[in-house]
């Protein structure tokens, strides 16, 4: 068991926690945070697993970097959406319908 | 490819193109639309006539290309196709004339005639289909093209009928699709071929073949309105009369019956069907339907509903005829394909005339209508007698041929069924005739309209008269060359000689 593998396993755990959070929590920001936790877990696995056998592998590091940018972009967009949604409907979750009808889904 | 190969395609395209042109025409373009309609109908009639002559001479018309991997789209004209194609070409022409008159001043005519032509195009396709797959293609197209016609009036009742119609036919289509796909998997792409494909089928396949046969019949039986799959037919009566005429006489029920003919003769082969023991049960079912339809018809007071149940009964004649093993019985079944069409369209035209001219829909309103509308009533009388099987009209030829065929096939019980069915037919038609001719008019007509010299609009008057004349002629001149009977004999001769 190398430290890299430990990273990978820790990543697994983070994934589990993040998944649970995304599915269970209803507050949108929390969901988003859970997403980020899960993302971190995935990145850990991505980096940790290949480095288990050889030395450092720059490819997954580059991938993770790309992944992080994508995740940040998504997170930022999600935050904007959540903010605006809250602004318009006063809701922080998707569980209830917006109070005023704007032709939302049935 | 030569021009010959393309003739079936032209025949098909004639109405297809007509339909598209009509859709594109504005609602008010009454004259142009009528011209397009009638022009196409006449042109198609000519094409079909050419093909009939050619097929008679032994020419093969056909075109095919691969559509989906493993299956071809095949159009071809053989004797049997020409039978159906001829019927639909002739009756389309008449029905178009009729419909022009019937829908005068009513809304949505552009839509109506567009789908009407589409419906005929599908029928033509069904007639000319060269394999089960192509047949199915047009069979489903027919379902779609007729739906707008059935619900044309747009009332709740019409829509309900349309729903029933669609549920029945699409379910039937699905079953048919299953059967075709299965058969395809079992035996490859099966072209219609005189004598069928399963003459010497592997005994191991018998189980599957039987099951597929049942599925095929179940799928086709919906349109052919075999009991217990007939429920849609009486409901579809809310459609305008030309549509009913078309549904009952030419397009829909015939498509089902024609499909069964194809399956029995050109897919399984009559010998194989008989050897598999498939014909006898089907014959019983058809016989039961004949009687059932007649009995139900007895209790209908709505004229068109009564006619509808009559159709349920009559179409099964065709199926029964097919099930009679032997050339004569087959001739009887096939010839009824045409005879029933001519007679039933006459009756529906007349029913439409009564409704349109006098506002009569129910049988008990018909008292004395014969005096007001003698031409229509005469046509109705001839059609009704034809249905009963009174000689020398078309129906008699059918019954006689079928009876002879049944005896040749050692299925004597069919005679009893024929007789019983005729009695029932008489029981529900003769009272109508009595009311028409021998009762005095009671009160005013519900909704009378006048057209001057003729008893009704000329557009409405002549089609039933012509079909009534045809009813007489195909009966009286049954032994004439190119009469339905002679043509059916030709078909059967070719089917049995191969």
């Amino acid at each position, binding site marked *: 068991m190398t430290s890299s593998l430990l990273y990978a396993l820790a990543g697994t755990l983070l994934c589990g926690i993040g998944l649970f959070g995304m599915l269970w929590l209803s507050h949108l920001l929390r969901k988003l945070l859970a997403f980020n936790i899960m993302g971190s877990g995935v990145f850990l696995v991505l980096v940790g697993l290949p480095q288990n056998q050889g030395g450092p592998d720059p490819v997954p590091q580059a991938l993770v970097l790309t992944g992080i940018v994508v995740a940040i972009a998504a997170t930022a967009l999600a935050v*904007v959406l959540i903010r605006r949604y809250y602004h318009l409907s006063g809701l922080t979750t998707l569980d209830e319908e917006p109070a005023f009808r704007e032709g939302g889904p049935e | 490819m030569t021009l010959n190969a393309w003739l079936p395609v032209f025949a098909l395209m004639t109405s297809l193109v007509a339909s598209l042109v009509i859709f594109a025409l504005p609602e008010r373009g009454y004259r142009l639309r009528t011209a397009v309609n009638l022009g196409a109908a006449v042109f198609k009639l000519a094409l079909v006539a050419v093909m009939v002559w050619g097929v008679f001479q032994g020419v093969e018309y056909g075109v095919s290309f691969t559509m989906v991997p493993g299956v071809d789209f095949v159009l071809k004209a053989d004797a049997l196709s020409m039978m159906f194609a001829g019927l639909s070409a002739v009756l389309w022409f008449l029905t178009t004339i009729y419909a022009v008159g019937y829908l005068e001043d009513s809304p949505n005519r552009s839509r109506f005639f567009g789908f009407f032509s589409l419906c005929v195009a599908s029928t033509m396709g069904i007639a000319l289909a060269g394999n089960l797959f192509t047949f199915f293609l047009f069979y489903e197209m027919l379902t779609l093209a007729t739906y707008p016609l059935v619900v044309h009036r747009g009332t709740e009742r019409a829509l309900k009928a349309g729903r029933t119609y669609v549920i029945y036919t699409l379910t039937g289509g699905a079953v048919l699709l299953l059967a075709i796909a299965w058969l395809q998997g079992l035996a490859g792409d099966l072209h219609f071929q005189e004598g069928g494909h399963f003459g010497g089928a592997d005994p191991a396949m018998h189980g599957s073949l039987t099951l597929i046969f049942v599925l095929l019949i179940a799928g086709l039986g919906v349109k052919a309105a075999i009991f217990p799959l007939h429920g849609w037919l009486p409901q579809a009566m809310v459609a305008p009369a030309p549509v009913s005429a078309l549904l009952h006489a030419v397009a829909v029920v015939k498509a089902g019956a024609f499909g069964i003919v194809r399956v029995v003769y050109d897919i399984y082969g009559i010998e194989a069907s008989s050897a598999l023991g498939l014909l006898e049960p089907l014959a019983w079912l058809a016989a039961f339907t004949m009687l059932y339809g007649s009995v139900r018809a007895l209790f209908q007071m709505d004229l068109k509903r009564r006619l509808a149940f009559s159709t349920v009964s009559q179409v099964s004649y065709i199926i029964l005829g097919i099930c009679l093993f032997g050339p004569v019985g087959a001739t009887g079944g096939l010839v009824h394909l045409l005879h029933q069409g001519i007679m039933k369209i006459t009756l529906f035209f007349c029913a439409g005339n009564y409704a349109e001219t006098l506002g009569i829909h129910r049988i008990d309103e018909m008292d004395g209508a014969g005096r007001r509308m003698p031409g229509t009533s005469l046509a109705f009388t001839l059609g009704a007698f034809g249905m009963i099987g009174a000689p020398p009209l078309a129906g008699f030829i059918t019954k006689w041929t079928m009876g002879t065929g049944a005896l040749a096939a050692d299925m004597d019980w069919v005679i009893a069924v024929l007789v019983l069915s005729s009695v029932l037919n008489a029981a529900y038609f003769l009272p109508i005739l009595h009311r028409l001719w021998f009762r005095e008019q009671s009160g005013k007509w519900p909704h009378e309209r006048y057209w001057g010299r003729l008893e009704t609009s000329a557009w409405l008057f002549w089609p039933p008269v012509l079909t009534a004349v045809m009813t007489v002629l195909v009966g009286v001149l049954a032994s004439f060359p190119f009469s339905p009977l002679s043509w059916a004999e030709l078909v059967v001769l070719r089917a049995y000689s191969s």
Partner: protein
Amino acid sequence: MIRVVRLLILAVACLALTAALAASIWAIAGNPSPVNLPQLLSENLDRSGVEHPVTAVLLNFRSYDTLLEIGVLVIAGIAGISMAKTASLEDPELRTSDALLYALQRWFIPLMLVLAGYLLWAGADRPGGAFQAGAVLAATGVLMRLGGVPMEFLRPGLLLRLGLALGFMVFLLVAVASAIGGDAFLAYPPGMAKILIVVIESVLTLSIAMVLLALFVSAPVNDAEDPEEGSPS
């Protein structure tokens, strides 16, 4: 009650998934990898134009990923500003009067700018690069915004959009330039890899910072109603 049951089910499911994941990771860790990519990489590193392998992967070997990644970022930016009705820039409530923050601003901003520049430059041979530099730059912008520095270019105007797209645009032009010459898309002309990568990195830094900043400021304040299609307006 039902909630508890659902919670339990979900927890057990997540745990099970984690365990399965861990198990397969354990299994995979024991298997030898059939392809040795790092070695292949180091063999080709000198042809890439940069010394640092991660940057080489990002901007040369797998530059298509990066191009699209910037695309994703730009999308996020576009989507963000499409929702911003940034009349809020002058909102006085946003302006801080905190002395500490104010001081921080004065001291940190120049420092952060320098740091960003350094990160960008370092990317060639050690950890660092456009994204890191862009992130620091964006953080600087956030700080300024919180401090109430008016940044007119953040209004959704041409300038903002140009800024968003600049890095991407340059990257794309470089990518297509060689393709016009008959080479593969995204291939660098021989010998020019280094300089082109530096140029791309620089403009990317700007654009990344722009996007992040734009997303930060495009939080909505006012509401504007746009009748949904079909509903009576």
